[in-house]
Every structure is written in structure tokens, then in C-alpha cells.
């Protein structure tokens, strides 16, 4: 097994252990959250040795070139000396809460203003630092021309950061957010293409940003948004989305409730199943899927088998921190 070094100490890696596993096992405080290569909060640098190919997948070329890598994705193949990411790369920005509103039983809208301008694309996410420096990812529901950044926080039972953001933090209070991360956004490269967007719970947040962005950029192809939840608890923004659908003939919105109840203006069943039944042929479509991780994985596969090309499938699986 390989060895790694950090701040002058050497550590032995066990079978299949990642750089993050080794450091955490040795009580070295390295920021991390998803442990699945999504959030990028575990970004570190190799000052000696070469990080694995998998640990640099999805990184900006400039970062990969400087031998940055994701500690949670790197099973070392040679000796690596690891260093914390430079301040300029792993940058957190101060922000202030400017409004809070409950959108449904489980979802709270939080709007913030950052001290520095953040250059993001609608649908990307930011990492937010909790009171004890815990890091959690939250998707951006606003678009860059808005003068605030909007999040939709789904309150998780006993969830440290989501309950803090839903119940405790008040307007005027401060928090720290990272630079934008993620590849799930509208490219605007083909404005006639049909778009299919599927989300569960607060998975609507990035999709709402993407739809707003596409409409603002004058997307002319059809746009279908399916938002699902087990009950009405996690269904929100219905009025807004229905109004948007009236304004834009190429935009169609469907709310889906999966616990079997029949509710006016919603369809019974899972959002992903209803969407793929209504649109069984997805060749040349772009597909966006966000929310529950197993729903995201299954739906991506189903969309691919329905004809969507891999490069046209975008997603954010809301994997819990671990």
C-alpha cells in the first residue's frame, strides 16, 4: 500500500483507502462533505507525486494542471505529499441573509447577498459553512441578473445545517459561502432543443434557476418541468410556475404527488415516471435531473435508454454529507 505525507508526517494507506479517509482516520481536519466527488470541498493539492486520474475528473483544467485533486476520490497510486488548497482557490465569501420565507411545510426560501460578486451560472451550487464549520451544498435558484442569491432549503429531521438555515438564522445575520461549483446548468448552445427537467423536493431549486435562465436567454424549444414529492409538504412555487407557463407557451409545468392522493392541478405518481411516460423518446433532448440521489441515478439511466445522449444529461444528486 502507498504512503502519503501531510505537514511533515507520513501516513500508511490501508487497502482501498482514499487520501481523505487516511487523513480523517488520523484526526487531521480536512474540509469535506459529500465524499462522492460532487461538492469539491475536499480539494487539496499534491506538492509531490501524481494524483489519480479519477480524483481530477471534473476539475477545471487550470486546477488539474497545478495538481489539485479531490481527496475523497483519490486512492493513491504512488507517494503523494498533500497540502491544503491555497486560500485563493478554496475561497469562502461573507454573505448576509436578506430575506426568509416559508414556501411549504418542509421548504424555506433563503435569499442572501454576498460581499463580493460571485460569478455563477443558474443551477450551480454553493457550499455553505454551518455554525461548526460543517460544509453542505445548496443549489442556486436565482439567475445572475437577480440582485440576490436564492436557496430553497429542505428541512431534514435532525439535519444540522438544514435546520439551522430553516429555523434559526435570521435576516441580517451572516454566513460564509464558497465559489460556485457544478456542471448542471443551461448552456444556451441550441435554443431549439427540447428540454426535460425533473426534480424532487428542493431539487426544484436548480431547475427553477435553469428554467428562468433558459427563458431569459430566449430558448425557443419546448421546456417541460416535472416537480415531484410524496406529499404536498415539499411541493412549492406552484403559483409562480403556473403563471410562468401562462406567459410562455413553450413552457409546461407539472406537479406530481406520489403517495396516491388526488389533488387538483397535480398528477398522481412519481415525477420521473410521469415525465418519461409522457416523453418516451428523448433523442436530441437535453435532460436535467436533480434531488434524491437514487431517483437521479435511475432517471439518468432511463433518459439515456430513452435516447438522450450522455453529453445532454445534466444532474445534481443531493447526496447527504458523511
Amino acid at each position, binding site marked *: 500500500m502507498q504512503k502519503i505525507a501531510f505537514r511533515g508526517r507520513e501516513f500508511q494507506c490501508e487497502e482501498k483507502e482514499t487520501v481523505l479517509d487516511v487523513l480523517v482516520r488520523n484526526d487531521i481536519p480536512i474540509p469535506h462533505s459529500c465524499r462522492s466527488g460532487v461538492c469539491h470541498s475536499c480539494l487539496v493539492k499534491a506538492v509531490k507525486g501524481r494524483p489519480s*486520474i*479519477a480524483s481530477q*475528473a471534473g476539475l477545471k483544467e487550470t486546477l488539474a494542471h497545478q495538481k489539485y485533486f479531490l481527496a475523497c476520490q483519490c486512492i493513491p497510486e504512488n507517494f503523494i505529499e498533500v497540502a491544503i488548497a491555497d486560500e485563493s482557490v478554496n475561497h469562502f465569501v461573507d454573505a448576509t441573509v436578506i430575506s426568509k420565507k416559508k414556501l411549504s411545510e418542509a421548504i424555506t426560501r433563503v435569499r442572501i447577498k454576498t460581499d463580493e460578486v460571485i460569478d455563477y451560472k443558474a443551477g450551480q451550487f454553493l457550499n455553505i459553512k454551518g455554525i461548526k464549520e460543517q460544509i453542505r451544498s445548496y443549489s442556486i435558484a436565482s439567475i445572475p441578473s437577480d440582485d440576490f442569491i436564492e436557496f430553497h432549503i429542505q428541512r431534514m429531521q435532525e439535519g444540522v445545517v438544514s435546520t439551522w438555515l430553516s429555523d434559526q438564522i435570521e435576516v441580517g445575520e451572516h454566513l460564509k459561502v464558497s465559489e460556485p461549483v457544478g456542471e448542471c446548468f443551461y448552456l444556451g448552445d441550441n435554443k431549439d432543443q427540447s428540454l426535460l427537467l425533473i426534480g424532487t423536493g428542493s431539487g426544484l431549486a436548480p431547475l427553477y434557476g435553469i428554467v428562468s435562465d433558459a427563458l431569459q436567454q430566449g430558448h425557443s424549444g419546448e421546456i417541460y418541468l416535472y416537480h415531484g414529492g410524496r406529499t404536498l409538504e415539499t411541493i412549492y412555487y406552484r403559483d409562480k410556475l403556473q403563471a410562468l407557463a401562462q406567459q410562455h407557451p413553450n413552457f409546461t409545468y407539472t406537479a406530481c404527488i406520489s403517495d396516491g392522493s388526488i389533488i387538483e392541478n397535480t398528477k398522481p405518481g412519481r415525477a420521473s415516471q410521469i415525465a418519461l411516460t409522457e416523453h418516451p423518446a428523448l433523442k436530441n433532448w437535453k435532460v436535467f435531473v436533480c434531488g434524491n440521489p437514487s431517483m437521479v*441515478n435511475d432517471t*439518468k*439511466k432511463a433518459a*439515456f*435508454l430513452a435516447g438522450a*445522449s*450522455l*453529453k445532454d*444529461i445534466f444532474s445534481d444528486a443531493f447526496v447527504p454529507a458523511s
Partner: protein
Amino acid sequence: MSETLYEKLGGDAAVNAAVDIFYRKVLADDRINSFFEGIDMDKQAAKQKAFLTMAFGGPHNYTGKDMRDGHAHLVKKGLNDTHFDAVMENLGATLKELNVPDDLIAQAAAIAESTRNDVLGR
């Protein structure tokens, strides 16, 4: 220097075009798709790309031992010659669909075939 197989097939762009077709065939093939169940799509697509780059004679870092270790958990689940044949069939059909000439298909097939014993752990 004469062109390598990888260059003749069209390099990285050809691999990207082939991944979509090949992966779709594999997932739709009931003889082998159970081996690919529950695996994250993006990671799996990256691995399909690694597989195709290798079969196309392109640059890769895999050794015979890597192939052995990488498929050992699948051999435990019953991976055998029929599954290997199915993958070979899907590879051939993918290249045909991309209008690759028969002699190049044969060369790619020979590269993939040469890994049989390692993949099947013999």
C-alpha cells in the same frame, strides 16, 4: 511513422461517439446488464470510455493485473465466457454502426480479445 489503429479510428472524438452507442447496447443487453446495475452513470460512462480507448489501441495505463483486479468482483458474481462474448458482440456492432471498415473492427476486436483470460481471472 504509419498511423496507429487509434488514429485511424479517429482518436478521442471517435471514442466519445462510440461511448453513447456502446453503453446503450450494454445496458439494453439482458445477458450482461445486471453487472452494471446500481453503478453511478457518470462513473460508469467514464469506465466505458476507458474500455473503448483500450480496445481502440489508444493510450491507457491499464496492465493485465489491473484488468484481473478490476473484474475480480464480477468473476465472483459469475462472469464467464458467454458474458465476454456478449461484450465482444456489442463492441463489433457499435463499430459497424459507426461505419468503421471491417479490417479495423477486426483489429479492435483482437485487442479486446487479448484481455479475455485476465478479465475472466484465469
